């Protein structure tokens, strides 16, 4: 077996504590790590180099990186509701008792059947899915996609609810420094010296970035800076906090890990910070690039920086004989680190023709062979490195010699991390000398003041060595190497990985270019380069360099793909934050909510409110409860909790003029003490709300809206007042919640209210469509005599805190009258029996009042109202618009809601032609038969015609067109 090369070194390890062993499980096997280990270092220490399988070919994969950029070592973490897929082993601290599992393999990591794809690589070129599954059309949805979905996908989605808590928090700072490496810490110190409030965010648990690992006295330098910062009252240092995205106006999102892998502390697992930053300094460092040589994905081939991180930070070695392959001086640090740890470095392969900088010389001085002008022609081994074949870099891959090795440390140079800088529009320059894209300080992301809201520093700005702070030695320039060797054969290019997670190779990008792809964004999507969970952190630059070469153009002409948040994946839990369970949404409760609940209310959500749909008694069905409630109302008296109705005060010298514009009918002529029903339309003429307005005084109206319309209509009013008629003297106030409102309805309504005492509610004192103010049972009340049921009806509004008192009094005093609480469904049925329309039933955003026969509520005298001109457009005045009628079912069946009336013939889509649609349909307990309303072509002119309505899964329903007023056509009942 060749996958047991990695091991724990006897000494060293900056971040581990050998005194504390940490047991954990991987794929069912018991393993031991050390306190401070990441999962990756702990697995390596246990000889487990192979940590996953690639996405497309199921190739065995080990980690290639040591940080957030890792594309390969993705594990499933935890169990049950805490299971989380695609967790990077390189950034996940190992915790005692942790249960981890490998992904994208079946039946096991070692014997994965999907690896057969690996031998079929010729059949999975770029754009494979597009090319293969084009025909026949239906096959993609029904055949290919389900099969591919089952075999594809890295991690599995968890199936249980997440038991952990999450929270969000708002943060503010003059300066936010992203990155707690040495450059970030120094930037924080400088900003703090200017008196700014400074917040420093570091994604790792440790400060200092690469400096402690890469520079002799690095730890000392970092510690000194930290000590300085900790003493400053205006600096906040926050570890384990990953800045995920930068948005307009200096809005920065960051995820703080609080109890990520120790969920039993009872505190939130993660916290999403929503930060308003005066200025953001990106000190996000740089990421090392792989080299594209054949076999660069074999487990044991790692980034040079990762190899020395594992050695230096965790005292784990990926192998005993480590070959270094590079195009720059920096990678020689890995050779030195390996030698210092007692490992063998048989050879350093350098693509450059000369390598005589300080670092290469130091390596030579340790007796290591340095082969310049050389490259790797191939890697021997499948599950682990066995040997490396060496060739000339400028050749086509003729093998000069083969060196036995069990690990390869590769370095293709470094790329500044420019994500945050780019998220909000910061531009990049291609630096041909250093061979990377770096932020252009002249074109930063702009803030509201037109000035840069972000700046970059340190390696993130292109200063890779940050020599002023680290004291790093000079390095000689690197050689751009995008393919190794330069003239590699076609066959070799099929084995050179660019995107490790998505299995995109040099050959795929070249094929895309050959097929005509020029845009880097199109190539990305065609080849899936950079589209995996790592978002191409290690692959992007190599990929676009290969594309540029294939297109024979310079790299800046190709450009980068767009950097989008989040920097690393964000758990959905942090985005939901506290919004789950009981507080998922604000649930609005009326003053009578608890009473309704105690009396068995079945709830109907209306907006954020909960309204009683009906009040079933005992084992009563909802339909039976509704029927009983309606009969009780029509026979005696019932009460409806109407507190949710919108109530908006409109006051001012121009209030009448304003309401005349808002409503289709005249509100300015309404006498004080009276009520009037009105319609509100959108600018396009469509009916959006209705309700009763009452004139309270000379300059004050109280406007009732629908329950769901209160906030929307208040906003509509304010929109016109603030944006269009800002000089009109009108104040509005949404006082919906100030009042509890009870509809007291039925022939005995007056009798019941009179028992409360305090107001004269006789027809003379309070006629239909009038309102009066006074006290009922000692409670201040406003009583509106309006009816939505056709019965004698009073709506009583009292201060909300006394609503329950009124409600209970009504029920106490009305026992002998069989006073019955009724819900929204009884209200709906009763209004339909009377042919009253309901916003949302008879209207759907495409219906104008004229469609509903409401012309009587549209003023002919007014010069204008919102929607008037729209209603004069030809389409709105078309006599063929469907119009409201009633329907009588011929065979006693209730017509299905929303059913269409069919017409002869078929339309251009081969569908039946239609001539009408059901808008409301109920069984009427009052009339003991089904009733319905519908919008029908020329409906009002076709009384008595029979229509046939669709009925999915059953026989069509035939119905006769009739007047929509089914009950009490003369309207006498409202008079009691």
């Amino acid at each position, binding site marked *: 077996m060749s996958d047991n090369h990695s091991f724990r070194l006897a000494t060293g390890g900056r971040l581990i504590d050998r005194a504390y062993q940490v047991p954990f499980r991987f794929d069912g096997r018991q393993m031991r790590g050390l306190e401070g280990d990441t999962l990756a270092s702990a697995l390596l220490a246990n000889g487990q180099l192979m940590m996953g399988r690639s996405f497309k070919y199921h190739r065995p994969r080990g980690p290639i990186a040591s940080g957030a950029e890792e594309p390969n070592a993705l594990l499933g973490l935890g169990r049950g509701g805490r299971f989380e897929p695609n967790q990077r082993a390189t950034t996940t601290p190992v915790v005692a008792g942790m249960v981890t599992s490998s992904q994208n393999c079946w039946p096991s990591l070692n014997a994965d059947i999907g690896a057969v794809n690996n031998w079929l690589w010729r059949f999975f070129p770029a754009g494979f899915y597009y090319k293969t599954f084009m025909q026949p059309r239906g096959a993609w949805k029904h055949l290919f996609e389900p099969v591919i979905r089952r075999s594809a996908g890295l991690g599995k989605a968890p199936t249980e609810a997440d038991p952990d808590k999450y929270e969000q928090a*708002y943060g503010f700072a003059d300066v936010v420094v992203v990155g707690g490496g040495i450059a970030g810490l120094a930037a924080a110190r400088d900003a703090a010296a200017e008196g700014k409030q400074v917040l420093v965010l570091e994604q790792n648990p440790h400060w200092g970035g690469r400096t402690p690992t890469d520079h002799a006295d690095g730890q000392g330098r970092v510690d000194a800076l930290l000590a300085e910062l900790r003493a400053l009252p205006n600096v*906040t240092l926050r570890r384990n906090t990953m800045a995920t995205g930068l948005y307009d106006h200096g809005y920065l999102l960051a995820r703080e890990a609080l109890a990520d892998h120790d969920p039993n502390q009872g505190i939130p697992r993660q916290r999403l910070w929503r930060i*308003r930053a005066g200025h953001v300094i990106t000190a996000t460092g740089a990421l090392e690039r792989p080299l594209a040589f054949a076999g660069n994905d074999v487990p044991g081939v790692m980034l040079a920086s990762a190899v020395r991180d594992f050695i230096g930070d965790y005292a784990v070695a990926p192998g005993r004989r480590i070959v270094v392959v590079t195009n720059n001086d920096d990678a020689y640090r890995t050779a030195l680190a390996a030698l210092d740890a007692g490992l063998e470095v048989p050879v350093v392969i350098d693509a450059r023709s000369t390598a005589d900088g300080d670092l290469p010389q130091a390596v030579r001085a340790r007796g290591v062979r340095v082969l310049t002008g050389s490259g790797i022609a191939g890697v021997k081994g499948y599950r682990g490195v066995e040997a490396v074949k060496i060739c000339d870099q400028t050749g086509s891959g003729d093998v000069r010699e083969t060196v036995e090795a069990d690990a390869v440390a590769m370095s293709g140079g470094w790329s500044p991390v420019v994500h945050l800088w780019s998220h909000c529009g910061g531009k990049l320059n291609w630096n041909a000398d250093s061979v990377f894209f770096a932020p252009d300080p002249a074109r930063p992301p702009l803030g509201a003041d037109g000035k840069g809201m972000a700046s970059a520093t340190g390696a993130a700005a292109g200063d890779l060595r940050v020599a002023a702070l680290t004291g790093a030695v000079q390095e000689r320039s690197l050689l751009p190497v995008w393919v190794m060797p330069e003239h590699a054969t076609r066959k070799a290019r099929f084995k050179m990985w660019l995107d490790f997670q998505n299995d995109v190779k040099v050959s795929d990008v070249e094929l895309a270019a050959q097929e005509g792809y020029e845009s880097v964004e199109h190539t990305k999507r065609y080849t899936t380069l950079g589209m995996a969970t790592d978002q191409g952190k290690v692959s992007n630059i190599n990929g676009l360099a290969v594309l540029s070469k294939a297109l024979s153009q310079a790299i800046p002409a190709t450009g980068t793909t767009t950097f989008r948040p989040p920097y690393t994946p964000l758990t959905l839990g942090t985005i939901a934050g506290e*919004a789950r369970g009981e507080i998922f*949404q604000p649930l609005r409760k009326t003053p009578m909510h608890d009473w309704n609940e105690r009396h068995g209310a079945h709830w109907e959500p209306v907006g954020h409110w909960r309204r009683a749909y009906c009040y079933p008694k005992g084992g009563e069905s909802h339909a039976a409860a509704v029927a009983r409630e309606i009969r009780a109302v029509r026979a005696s008296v019932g009460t409806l909790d109407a507190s949710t109705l919108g109530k908006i*005060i409109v006051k001012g010298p121009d209030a009448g003029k304003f309401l005349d514009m808002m409503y289709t009918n005249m509100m300015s002529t309404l006498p004080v003490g009276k009520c009037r029903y009105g319609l509100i339309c959108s600018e396009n003429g469509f009916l959006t709300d209705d309700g009763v307005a009452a004139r309270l005084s000379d300059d004050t109206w109280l406007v009732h809206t629908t329950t769901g319309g209160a906030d929307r209509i208040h906003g509509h009013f304010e929109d016109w007042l603030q944006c269009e008629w800002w000089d009109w003297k009108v104040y509005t*106030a949404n*006082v919906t919640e*100030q009042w509890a409102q009870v509809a007291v309805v039925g022939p005995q309504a007056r009798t019941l209210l009179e028992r409360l005492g305090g107001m004269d509610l006789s027809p003379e004192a309070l006629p239909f469509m009038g309102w009066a103010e006074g006290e009922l049972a000692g409670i201040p009340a406003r009583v509106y005599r309006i009816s939505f049921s056709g019965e004698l009806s009073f709506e009583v509004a009292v201060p*909300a805190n006394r609503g329950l008192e009124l409600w209970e009094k009504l029920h106490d005093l009305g026992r002998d009258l069989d006073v019955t609480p009724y819900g929204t469904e009884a209200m709906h049925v009763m209004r339909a029996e009377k042919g009253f329309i309901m916003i949302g039933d008879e209207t759907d955003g495409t219906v104008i009042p004229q469609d509903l026969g409401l012309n009587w509520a549209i003023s002919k005298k007014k010069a204008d109202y919102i929607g008037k001109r729209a209603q004069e457009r030809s389409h709105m005045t078309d006599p063929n618009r469907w119009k409201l009628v009633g329907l009588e079912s011929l065979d006693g069946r209730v017509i299905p809601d929303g059913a269409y009336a069919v017409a002869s013939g078929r339309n251009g889509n081969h569908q039946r032609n239609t001539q009408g649609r059901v808008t409301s349909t109920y069984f009427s307990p009052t009339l003991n038969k089904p009733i319905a309303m519908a919008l029908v072509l020329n409906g009002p002119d076709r009384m008595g015609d029979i229509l046939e309505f669709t009925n999915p899964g059953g026989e069509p329903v035939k119905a006769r067109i009739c007047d929509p007023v089914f009950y009490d056509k003369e309207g006498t009942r409202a008079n009691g």
Partner: protein
Amino acid sequence: MAEALATITEIATPGMIQIRADLDRAGDAIAEAAGLAIPAQTRFSAAGDRWLGWMSPDELLLILPRADVAEAVAALNDALTGEHALVLDVSDMRAGFDVIGNGAGEALAKLAPVDFARLAGDGVRRTRLAQVSCAIWPVGGGYRVVGFRSVADYMRGLLQGAARPGTTLAPR
């Protein structure tokens, strides 16, 4: 177990009067009738059992004992005679909570986009608590949060969750 960041207590909502008017023109008359100085933008003025807060460029909120509401509404209407103004008793549409304790600001910072470190002792914010609107201002030992009555249970749930023991925002 650590202590909660703050204690959450629902208050019996006092009287509240919404006042809208041109504050430049009518400020003196309102101040006289309310018995308090007109507060500066985003501030409140208070004396005895009365509190007057800035809500918007043409809106104030007067808080006072419930028993005094009717008289104050009448006094304000009198004072604003001839002005385009709106004076409304809104005492019943509100719910309020006191969030008291050393971590009160931290708990609220999880729910309201407010920089509590920079909120003046007489500062008031008309803002939101997660998904609902509210006003927040400092009171002895913490903050008072006033929102709408229909969502009182939601607000209580939010505040208790945000103040859960061990959830300090301090860096760790």
